[in-house]
């Protein structure tokens, strides 16, 4: 319930609120009911929200502000101030010690966009995030479907599938790097046994595949847990009805469960992109260090190397500003084009 309330611009929330007060027993709201509720949602919501505030927070903005303060402070110190500093740094050329600072307008951006190195990094990031997204979501769906079918020992399976999430990304990275090391890695030996000339130290494609696998493996658990919960919310009556009509498990999954998982899958796609953009740094660092020849030098890793190894603070700041814009654009596009196709009615 709280999760839904935190998205204030959604009309779709109306039926949920209504359900709270009305039909508490049934799990699903029929599509027609949802539609009519949406129409009358606005007026109903205003009343309910007003009631909610009065009931809980007393008069005036004092208490709510106080309660919001910790979160606002965290945002201020860990988001707004750093973002502002990144913005200012991105138009400066400065030595790392900050004793010599020159204002250079947009030179940092210009030289970035002109550099083949940066363009390569954009392309690599694109392929990496898309592949990672498809792989993560695909595997998580298969696993969620499979564990949903299992009755005996389901918790055990779930726990095992969730385990990788508890492993630190750097350790996961080293593990993968070692397993697939062409000289000593056991899995690399298996690949060589099949006649595949696997060598992520030399072959850019192999390296990209390896980091994608490692990053996906690390993130499957996250998608999985959301999908498992999503599947639990699929009305049993619908599934049973379909079964009576002769639909097999796969058909039921594809035609009923999957569309109903729409909001979850959409949310996970957005989260996977953000994960790919920002949180895969440690895996890249441990598995390939961005190599060979920049083949796995994704944007966030390049931000780190240029900032903390090369001490080119202006360029690094410009890159992080651009990266943030890319992530923003990407998320907005997803909301713009896919959000409409998602059915929130369930």
């Amino acid at each position, binding site marked *: 319930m709280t999760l839904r309330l935190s998205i204030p611009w959604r009309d779709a929330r109306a039926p949920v609120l209504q359900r709270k007060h009305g039909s508490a027993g049934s799990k699903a709201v029929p599509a027609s009911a949802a539609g009519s509720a949406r129409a009358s949602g606005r007026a109903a919501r205003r009343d309910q929200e007003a009631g909610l505030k009065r009931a809980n927070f007393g008069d005036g903005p004092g208490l709510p502000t106080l309660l919001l303060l910790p979160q606002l402070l965290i945002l201020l110190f860990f988001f707004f101030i750093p973002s502002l500093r990144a913005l200012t740094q991105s138009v400066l*050329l*400065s*030595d*790392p*010690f*900050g*004793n*010599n600072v*020159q204002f250079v307008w947009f030179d940092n951006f210009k*030289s970035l966009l002109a550099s083949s*190195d940066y363009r390569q990094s954009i392309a690599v990031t694109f392929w990496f995030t898309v592949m990672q997204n498809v792989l993560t979501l695909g595997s998580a769906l298969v696993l969620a479907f499979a564990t949903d079918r299992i009755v005996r020992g389901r918790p055990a399976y779930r726990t095992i599938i969730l385990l990788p999430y508890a492993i630190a990304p750097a350790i996961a990275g*080293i593990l*993968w*790097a*070692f397993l*697939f*090391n*062409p*000289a*000593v*890695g056991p899995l690399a030996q298996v690949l060589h046994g099949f006649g595949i000339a696997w*060598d*992520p*130290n*030399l*072959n*850019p494609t192999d390296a990209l595949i390896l980091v994608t696998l490692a990053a996906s493996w690390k993130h499957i658990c996250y998608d999985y847990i959301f999908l498992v919960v999503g599947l639990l919310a699929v009305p049993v009556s619908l599934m049973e009805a379909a079964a009576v009509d002769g639909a097999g498990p796969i058909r039921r999954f594809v035609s009923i469960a999957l569309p109903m998982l729409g909001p979850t899958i959409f949310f996970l796609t957005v989260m996977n992109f953000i994960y790919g953009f920002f949180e895969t740094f440690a895996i890249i660092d*441990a*598995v*390939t*260090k961005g*190599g*060979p*020849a*920049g*083949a796995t030098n994704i944007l966030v890793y390049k931000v780190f*190397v*240029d900032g*903390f*190894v*090369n*001490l*080119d603070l202006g360029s690094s700041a410009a890159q992080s500003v651009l990266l943030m814009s890319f992530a923003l654009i990407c998320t907005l596009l997803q909301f713009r084009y896919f959000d409409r196709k998602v059915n929130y009615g369930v």
Partner: protein
Amino acid sequence: MGRKVAFIAALFGALALVGPAQARVEVQWWHAMSGVLGDRLNELVEKFNASQDKYTVVAVAKGNYDEVTNGVIAAYRAKRPPEMVQIAERGYMTMLLSGAIVPVQDLVEQKGYKIDFSDFIKPVASFWSYKGRMSAMPFNSSTPIFWYNKDHFQKAGFDKPADTWQELEKQLYVIKSKGISECGTVLPGDFYWSLLENYSAINNQPYGTLANGFDGLGTEFVYNKTKVVSQVARLKKWLDDGVMQIAGQGFSPEQLFTSGRCSTFANSTASHGNIERNATVNWSATFLPHESDINPPLNSTIGGGAIWVMKGHTPERYEAVAAFLDFVAQPETQVWWHGATGYVPATNRAYALARERGYYKDHPTREIAVLQLSRGTPNESSRGFRFGNFVQTMLAQRQEVEAVFSGQKQPQQAMDDAVKRGNEILRQFEKLNAGKTPENERP
């Protein structure tokens, strides 16, 4: 938080120990030595602290060189820098022109210590000094040497690795074809240092204009017009023929040598400690090879780190710093450090002392680095390197060499691109530091 607690605890601990007796002046030294080297460094500091009762040096391990650099930058910007910091050789220009340091020689002389700076081994002195004055105290100086597996060479019918790349290549191919080892050599993680930069110095190939940057910030890379290109082509050929292996991520190149999988390894003399401890094979070492048409070969250049003194501290603390630097420069300290780690003794006097004591009779491979560094008279190609943003240009170059290894580029093309990218980076450094010379402000 943790550091604060530790600091307060240390403070109380120190108070309890010293009590009403005179308070020792405490100074911090941030360093990048880990593992065995870190232990040795701590021993060195303890020796200094025990040798007198006025000063206490606190050694703080801050991670690898990059992390130390970032740590000191952050501390400086927060106006709380440590008194001393160990920075790698590639950071020389950044530190020199930072405006955040006190030149070591000025400090030491002002505090009345008589360190004979002319006694430092030439490539060491020239690397760390600006216009004949030492900017930082040479501390852990190394140079790449050529490690080899004795048994492999004997089995193949050779005494030891040949002196020239041409002859060595033949040997490595024989070793490979006879199936004595899986690979003739392993690509070092810092191959750009040992096999390109030091290669250029030894073979008298200029790396950049203006005497490798010694004569000004306007320097440009020129290694795309030198033997470096054929050197890269040679490495690519070895790689394709299976004579050279790349260890890659998740595995260290050194292990491929110490386990006996690869027969040779061009690596720092500072790995003596590790190799002595880890090698399961009958190893030895010799000089880095040179080209057959270059005779005699020149000296190699140094790597490693030096101790920089940061601005912004009280005169009492600088007394402590100067006393410690004087201690580091003592022949006794140098000889001990040399033996404990494999780094070279930085002064001629220390080297003579080690010889005198017969140290090299038992440890012949430890002398190679000193001999290789001090052979001949360093010229413009072998004195060292003065490139700004040298880490960044190196990473760009490494990327281009990797493009050769992966078959995406031809050696000439890759080196042209590396030089082009490197020069853009150099121009940015020049723009930032236009007209600047290191400030010689006295503390």
